[in-house]
């Protein structure tokens, strides 16, 4: 049994080591040092900065694509789709499956993944979201969580929880001293192409306009004769298909397992809020911000501290500008 003074001493030690850790030597340093290092690198024009910038751009573009489907469903139906992360995973496994068993190029696997996810998305929507679209929001949240569990575990049972990888050796190129892995580069191109394509679809086609109208005002859309339930399931299908494309692109350059979706899901939420609900340019900028923070944070900060920065930014955005950087823009 520790004596009282001894206990008091230990308490004092604890207070200085934990509560005051950021203020003590070795505590504050860990926040200042990385930024000091960062600033010195900028001052010295270190070539590593250019490399990090390239990595941030590559990662950010793909992140933007993962948020696209989520922001669409959120914007049109006001539903937080927790199954979005596992939709990405289904996309990854589809590309992997067609390329390993059928020997089809993964690049052709990506459109296949989009089709598979479109069907899956419509099925999920009709079975779980449509019946409770008017119910309190927590019910939709739990329903999509249930879907997440079902699909994730099904993948785990069918394909084992072991990480998988698409056999693809694209190599890399070097541009002006900057090293660019081609897998990620193609993923970025796909992301940009998809974003432009979806934007054109929403702005130029009849169906796209109906979707935007429903996002703006559901009751108004009903009054002018838009079949809102139909728009709902099409939106859910398209959102899921976008997740398929995003997942397929990620599979080009990264290993994955049934649980990969969780980290992407959380970051996709951050991007959606950061960029502004339903905003496409917002999703792109938000994706870039999150990608840059992760790449630069991963290089300068210890462990997963960069994720702390992302959440602080997220909370700050929610508080100060919940409509996001590009809020109020078109859906």
């Amino acid at each position, binding site marked *: *049994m*520790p004596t009282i003074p001894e*206990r008091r001493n*230990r*308490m004092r*030690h*604890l207070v200085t*080591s*934990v509560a005051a*850790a950021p203020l003590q030597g070795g505590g504050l340093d860990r926040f200042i040092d990385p930024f000091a290092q960062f600033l010195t690198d900028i001052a010295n024009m270190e070539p590593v900065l250019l490399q990090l910038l390239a990595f941030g751009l590559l990662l950010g573009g793909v992140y933007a694509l993962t948020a696209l489907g989520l922001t669409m469903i*959120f914007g049109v139906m*006001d539903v*937080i789709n927790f199954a979005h992360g596992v939709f990405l995973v289904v996309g990854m496994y589809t590309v992997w499956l067609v390329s390993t068993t059928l020997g089809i190029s993964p690049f052709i696997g990506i459109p296949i993944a989009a089709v598979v996810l479109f069907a899956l998305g419509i099925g999920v929507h009709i*079975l*779980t979201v449509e*019946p*409770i679209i008017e*119910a*309190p*929001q*927590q*019910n*939709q*949240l*739990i*329903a999509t*969580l*249930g*879907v*997440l*569990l*079902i699909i*994730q*575990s*099904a993948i*785990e*049972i069918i394909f084992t*929880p072991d990480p998988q990888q698409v056999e693809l050796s694209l190599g890399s190129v070097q541009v002006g001293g900057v090293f660019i892995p081609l897998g990620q580069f193609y993923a970025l191109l796909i992301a940009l192409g998809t974003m432009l394509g979806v934007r054109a679809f929403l702005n130029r086609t009849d169906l796209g306009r109906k979707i935007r109208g429903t996002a703006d005002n559901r009751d108004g859309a009903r009054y002018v004769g838009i079949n809102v339930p139909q728009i709902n399931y099409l939106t859910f299908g398209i959102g899921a298909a976008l997740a398929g494309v995003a997942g397929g692109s990620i599979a080009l350059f990264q290993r994955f397992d049934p649980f990969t979706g*969780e980290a992407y899901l*959380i970051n996709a*939420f*951050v991007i959606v*809020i950061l960029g502004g609900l339903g905003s496409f340019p917002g999703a792109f900028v938000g994706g870039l911000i999150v990608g840059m923070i992760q790449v630069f944070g991963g290089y300068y900060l*210890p*462990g*997963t*501290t960069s*994720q*702390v920065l992302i*959440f*602080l930014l*997220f*909370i700050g955005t*929610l*508080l*100060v500008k*919940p409509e996001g950087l590009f809020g109020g823009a078109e859906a």
Partner: protein
Amino acid sequence: MSTLESVREGYRTFDDQRYAPFVKGVALFALLAALPYIIEIDVAGMELAATLSLKVLILTVIYAYTAQSWNIMSGYTGQFSFGHAAFFGVGAYATQLLLTDVGLNPWIGMLIGGLLAGLYGLVIGALTFRFNLKGHYFALATLAFAELLRFVVTNMSELNGANGYFKPFPRDYGAEYGLAAFQFQTDLPYYYIILGFLLVVTVVSWAIKNSWVGLYFFAIREDERAAASVGVPSFRYKLVGVAVSAFFTALGGAYWSMYFNTIRPDTVFALFKNVEILLPAVVGGPGTLIGPIVGSFIVTPVSEVARTTFTDINGLDRIIYGAFLVAIVIYSPRGVVSWPSRARALWSRLKGDEEVSE
């Protein structure tokens, strides 16, 4: 039929008495207290205990307790929190940290953890309510505050980072197994402690519901602007809701850390912990006193029994659990507590139909 009628009539007169809720509460907790013995009763060679172990009962009551705590904030004031794992984790970490590094008795550590969680709740509440976050935005903000803590703790070597804490033996902090040390060599005392916790938080919830505080809470939930217009200080009372709810949730985390051997950021601050805390209340019926308890007795055993039954196919239990979640929110959006009245409505409709057909 006439006996049934008279029984029903008798129940109705009992239900009108002022002491009725008290009697029902005592009956409910007496039943819960007897449960560890009931599951061991042999019925035709079948023991309930074969599938429903004491461990499952403890988990069930833990989640009934945390859901009841969540309910004070989210069920009563209507501020849907998706980040109660933050408070749960603060309670667990404060208790273990003070126990391991200072040798402070876990009962005191638990209260300190509760106060810290209440403080964190006040910070979250002050920010989100001041900036008037609503609906999805509020839920996502609370989730972000919980995830923030997960990554902060994971990256702090002072808190053992991702490894977390291993619960010390009682002799390490100068105590014997027993109530004072908050550690026992069998599960039964643990069951009665968490049942005591549940009793306390249920009584507190009941007291809140039946006071002007509860009246303010429900007014805020139903229509905040109308409540404010008749002079309800909604900002202050929402803060009260968060702080009380966070305090009790943290005690649940502290209990968790004393019952299980280890805590890690990935277990007590886990993304899914947020869901496990709120699920029983939503399934049972948010905003009701009995809902979180009933909900936990439906949700938790399903998950645990499925886990122990389908051990040969890893993941099948979660498919069943997921399907169960989807089914329950689709077919029972207002919670299980609405089933009796729905059944009565169905019954009277059936009877009405019969009369029409005659």
